[in-house]
Each structure stands twice: as structure tokens, then as C-alpha cells.
């Protein structure tokens, strides 16, 4: 007997039905809603590739059953911005060429968004700590840290105008 769950993704109401109640949110996002920006990395809630915001809080979605987000608000990397209208974080990542293989970037962008939402002026150390739930294997860390700093500065400037 399929179960049905209603919630919002990137501001859009969705209603999904799954046969298996264990189905993780990540699977729903990728396979049913075709939002593949949220990546699978480990399925063990360890690497952060699958980070999304649930009611504004960063959460790993790979082992989170979809029923737990019923009537909640989910944001994924696709909700940040688009090539035509990039989020300042996405623009800063492009400006700093912050990435190599890029597989970890979706989750890192989401974690960074959560950080800047609660702390618009983070220090380099605070950014590092906020991203410690996300692994990067290529060694793009410093570019990523610079990009988050740059985006924060731009967002503060934008907010001050």
C-alpha cells in the first residue's frame, strides 16, 4: 500500500507516494522529483554530499526517511539559484573556481547557505567549522573557504544597499 507525503521543495508544493516507507528523502529528490543536484556519497550520513535544508536547518538526506519531512519545507542546491540568476554563493564559487571534480559542491553550497543565514559575517574559522560536516577529497578546501567569504561579503553589501 503506497504512502503519500506532502511537503514543499524549493518553495514548490509536492506530493509523492512511495511503496517502501524506508525510502530516504535523497531517493525521492533524485529519482522521483528528478532533482539530481543533491548527490549520493555514502548513505551513512557521514560525507555531506546529500545536504539539504529542512525548515532552514542543514540535514543529511541520504538516510532520512521521507515521511519525516511531511508538511515541512525542503531546500536543495537547485533552490539556490540558476545560471541566469545565480545565488551569490554560486557566483562566488564560479569566480574562485572553487572545485575540482565538483561532486561535493552541492552539499557544501547548502551548508554554506545555512551558515550565512544564521551568521552573515563568519570568520574563516567559523566557515571551516560549518563545513566540517562536508568532505572534499580533491583538496579544493581553500578555494571553497574563499568563495564563501566572498559571497558573505557580497551579500552583506547587497543587504546594506
Amino acid at each position, binding site marked *: 500500500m503506497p504512502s503519500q507525503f506532502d511537503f514543499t521543495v524549493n518553495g514548490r508544493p509536492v506530493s509523492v507516494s512511495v511503496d517502501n516507507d*524506508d525510502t530516504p528523502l535523497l531517493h525521492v529528490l533524485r529519482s522521483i522529483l528528478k532533482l539530481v543536484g543533491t548527490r549520493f556519497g555514502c*548513505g551513512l550520513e557521514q560525507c555531506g554530499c546529500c545536504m539539504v535544508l529542512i525548515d532552514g536547518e542543514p540535514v543529511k538526506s541520504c538516510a532520512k526517511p521521507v515521511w519525516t519531512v511531511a508538511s515541512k519545507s525542503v531546500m536543495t542546491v537547485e533552490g539556490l539559484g540558476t545560471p541566469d540568476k545565480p545565488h551569490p554563493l554560486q557566483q562566488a564559487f564560479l569566480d574562485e*573556481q572553487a572545485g*575540482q571534480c565538483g561532486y561535493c559542491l552541492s552539499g557544501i553550497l547548502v551548508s554554506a547557505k545555512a551558515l550565512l543565514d544564521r551568521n552573515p559575517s563568519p570568520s574563516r574559522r567559523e566557515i571551516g567549522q560549518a563545513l566540517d560536516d562536508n*568532505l572534499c577529497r580533491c583538496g579544493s578546501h581553500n578555494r571553497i*573557504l574563499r568563495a564563501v567569504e566572498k559571497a558573505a561579503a557580497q551579500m552583506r553589501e547587497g543587504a546594506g544597499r
Partner: protein
Amino acid sequence: MTTLPGSLADNPRLDRWVSFPNPGEVGIATGKVEIGQGVLTAMLQIAADELDVAPARITLRSGETGTTPNEGFTSGSRSIQAGGVALRYACAEVRALHLREAARVLGCDADNLTVRDGAILRDGTPTGQDYWSLAASVDLAREATASVSPKQSSAHTLIGQSTPRVDLPAKVFGEAIFIHDMALDGMRHARAVRQPRRGAVLESVDEAAIRRAAKGPVDIVRHGNFLAIVGDDETSVEAAAAAAPNHVTWAGVEPRSPLAQEANWLLQQPSVDRTVGAAEAAPVRGQARYEQTYSRAHLAHASIAPSCGIAQYKDGHLTVWTHAQGVYQLRAALAKQVGLDPATITVLHVQGAGCYGHNGADDAAADAAVIALQMPGRPIRVRWRREEEFGFEPVSPAMVVKVGALLDDAGRPADWTAEIWSGCHVSRPGAGNLLAAEALPNPPPKPVPADPPDSGGGGATRNGTPLYDIAAKRIIHHLVPETPVRTSSLRGLGAMPNVFAIESFIDELAERAGEDPVAYRLAMQSDQRARAVITRTAEMAAWNPSAARGTGRGRGIGFARYKNTAAYAAVVVELEVDEEIRLLNMWCAADAGLVINPDGVINQLEGGMIQSASWVLKEQVRIDTDGISSLDWESYPVLRFSEVPETKVELIASDSDMPLGVGEATAGPTAAAIGNAVSHALGARIRDLPLTRERIMRTLLAT
């Protein structure tokens, strides 16, 4: 006849590289594939610059059997050095052939003609001719001659520019760019239930229990000792695969020795021995001799994504999508494995997460191919589980390196021996190197372990010879053929442990001689490019020769020219040590010859530094009687954001026309610089990697 440059030697036909398919469009093909190193961007820069066309006109194909050149593996920091150079020469020749044809049509001298965005200009004025109008009369189905020199550096417009990565926007906007994101019509999901090791026999399968665990419909496929779970719902397939090892029994599973976890296990093993280099020196009475032994444990590639492969067998043709490093090599191996004619197999590269060498990519593709042949029609997607990637990918072999030197009166080495113990560094897919093949009926014989030849950079011997002015140098190589876990290539092969050993040893000699480590190195270095990177890195770091030892804060230097033929790099590391190591700063100056994309090169160099720092501080594959036991990111930790030091990288301007590979250039120097900095900080040396808390505590207690 001279050999054609780079990969042109094996792929001389010009039309394999360049085509003009439709008016205004340029087709470029490369056998090198994107594994996160930015190679596609560099290839576009090369082709656009040498052909004088806008990059937007170019459609780049990469890693497709049948349509792209066979350039072997994308490995060894050779993508630009071999593939990029080939593309440069091919494009330069194609441009010249079209100018020659234009000159014939226009009745003028080719010297008066130039190209602007594909259009032919005569003395700067449009002629109405372009690549596309001339294409029909220029036959590119001909062999390259490399008789046309690529542009001089001064004429470059795109080569040498930090062009933004073409693949990065899709990765920043969360688009479907990875193989993991492919969703083909009718695609089914699958997981293998891994044979614990070669030769293990599948005795029983409790299918009912596996189906219960799935909580949804799944098919169970068995072929010999190859077992897989297939279904339409990935969650059910994943659940079944996670539970399956508890519901199958295997016979013939030999226990592994947990002692093999430590590198010095190698010293007790049978080995295949050889000596390369200078003849053994006769000892001179009274001459000082110094000797030390260094080691490094097994390392995992630990790609951030587990491997993925997709295969479809339809109408007698097998199509395989893979993120492996060599599509032609995988095709040949698959053909052998499943008994198909290679002509009936197409292998297509799709990007995966960074691999840094031979990880599970080929094996996941082979899994998918075996299942697809069992279940013709629909595409089969195999995505390895995290535990499967850690547990079954080939790992980089542990190594022990004993360095000994006879010293001259000034305390400098006059005679040098590096004795190296290591498992095999390369077991790429070939006969018998695909996991699935080992489980099928009539498995191939176990391949004979063989390192790459020294002429190609070697495996365990890579960078085993120091690039210093030493009268006699030799390597004694002990290849340990039987290792407890499968080993294969990881970024730099033996270069990291060898450079760690050599450069640690050099520091120890400098200390014995009472000399500054930088000055000591320069005193026996006559290669000007090597001197330049060492000197510049020391300047960047404001190197202080008289900084006191044993204060808890230290700095160290490491240098190597990768493979002694590729890029030169020196690294200085500054750190603090109490019970643990805190990296503060890393500086690097490198000479990469002709640089196609400076920011891309810097990104590779600093990525290599940070990855090496992670290896040195944290990484060791754990082995117990079952095999690899470090199966997740808790048991195989890597460096995290808050632990990464500041990095500064500079490129030394070079007047060379030849690019030198950079992807693996900084790993060895960084490892050595960290080791030397820890020694400087502690006033005592740790010679075994990783530099764990236990080793630091033991060293502190002993001093």
C-alpha cells in the same frame, strides 16, 4: 623517421582528432577524460588557440570507443604532456593544410593567409573562404607528420590564460553531469553481493531472507559465484544488498593476516628482487655511512562518490557507461570477461567523482555488464555501496624504503642506495583484473603482478632516485607479489613514499652536517629549474635557517621533480605539534613548463598538497582477518575543512615549449615537508606514515 609527439604516435590519423562536421562547427576528440583535473577546459583552449576558432564553436568528445583516439589511461599526470601536446600538433597541421588549400584556391602564397575564428584572411582581409568551405577538398584521413610547429608562446591567445572550467557551472547549479545522475529509459538498479575474495565459492543463498530485507520486489541473479540483486526501486535493491552478506555462505575464504596492515609486514614476505642504477660501491675504509628506514601504510583512493557503472545489452550490442580512466582498456577487458567481440561493445566515459587512480570504476562497469548480459534489453545501473568502495577498490600498496648513503668529507652523499619493498602499484583491468570476472565460471588465471617499466616512470621505483648531484645512485627493488588486499595505482604511485624517504633522509644528513636544509639541498643541486623552485619556495615562506628545533612549532621543506621527468615542485610546511599536528601554512613554487591554464595548474598543485597532507596525517587502510575493515569515513578519516592550512602556490615562468605534468607533482614534496616540519618542531623524527597521535606520543616519550 622521427616519432610523432605524445599520443599522436599511437593515433596518427588527423581526422581522429579534428573534424569540421557542419558549417561553423568544429569537432575535437580526445582520449583523455575529465576526472576533476580540468583537462577538458585545457583541451578546448589548445584546440581553439591552434586552430584560431572561438571555443564556442568546438564540440569536444572525450573517452568514447570508436570515436575518440585511444590514448591509454588518463593517468600519470600525462593528459597535457601526451594528450594535449598531440592535440596541439594535430590542430597546427590541420590549420596549415587548410591554409595550403586556401592558397591554391585563391592563387596566392599561404604565407599571406591567416585564420580568424575559422575564416581565412588574406593580408587581414576576408577571402570568403573558411575551414568549412575548404573542408571537402582537404582530406584529413591522413597521417600526421608533425611537420608544422604549433604556435610560439608569444602568439598564444588562449593557451596560458586562466580560462574558467567548462564543467564547473553544471556542478555549482546541481545539474545532471555525473554518471550517477544518468536516468535512461527503463533503467533498473542493481548491486552485486561481492565474492569475499578470489576463489571463494558461493555455497548457499537464502533468497527468502534477502527478499524480506528488500521490502519490495527484487530479482536475484546468479552466474557462477557472481551474485546480484536487481530491481526497479533503488531503495529496495539497496536494502537487499546491505542485508545479503548475512544471508549467503561462502567456502574457501582464506583469512587475511592482520599484521599486513602495517608496512613492515612486507619485510618478511617473499619478493622478486632486482637492482637498477650504479654498481654496488666498494666500501672505503673510514668512510661514514648513514642509513634509515621509512614506511607508509596502504592508502585508499576514497573517492567522495562510490563507483557507478551502467550497461545495456540490446540487439547483440553491449553499451557501457563508465567513469573509468581508460575506455579502450575497459572494453578489451570486458570483451575477454564476457566473451564478446570488442566490435560489439561500446564504452562511453561519463564524469564521476575524482578518482586519483584506479578505484572501483572499472569493476562497477563490469558488474553492470555481467548483469546486462543476463538480463538483455533494459539498462542496468550498478552503484557501489560506500562499504563496497572502501572494502573492494584496489588500494595503494604499503611501502618500506630504506635509504643508505656513504658520505664524503663534507657530509654529503657520495654513494646512494634506496632499497624499496612494495606490493604491485598497477593492476589495471586486463586479463583477470575485474572483480566480476573472478566470480564468473572459468575465472581468468590470477595475473602476474608487474609494475610499470622504469622507462615510463616505474611503480614502486617512481622517484626512487634522488635528483641531486650524487656520484653513484641505485635502487634495490623488492616486489612483493602476494599482498593481502588488491593493490593498484593511486596518484603518484611510489613517488609519495619515495620522496618522503629521500627528502627526510636529506634533512637528516643536513642536520648531521650542521647545515640548513635549504642550503644543504642547493649545495648539491645543479639543475637550474630545481634550484629555482627550491629557492623561490623558501623565499615565499620567509625561510629562517636559524629557527630553533624542538619548540613545538616547526617548518620543513620537500622537493621533487615528479618522475624525474615531469613538473618540478618544492613545498614548505609550517605547523605546530603537541599531541597532534596542526598545519598552519603550506607554500609551493612549481615549474610546469608550458602552462595551458595557470589557475588549473595551481588548482591541481594545491589539491595535491592538501590530499597529501590528509594521507600523511590521517590515512591508513585497516586490515583484519576478513580483509579491509576501514569501511566508512569514521574508520578511514580524511582531512576536514577546519584542519586545512592556508596554501600559496606560485608558478615559475618558463620559456619551455613543453608542458610538464602537474597532477601528481606536489604529493611527495608535501609529505616530506610535513615530516621534516614535525621533526623540526619535536626535535625528534617520525619515519613511519601516517603521523598519528600514537606515533607522536611515543616519539615525545622517547625524547
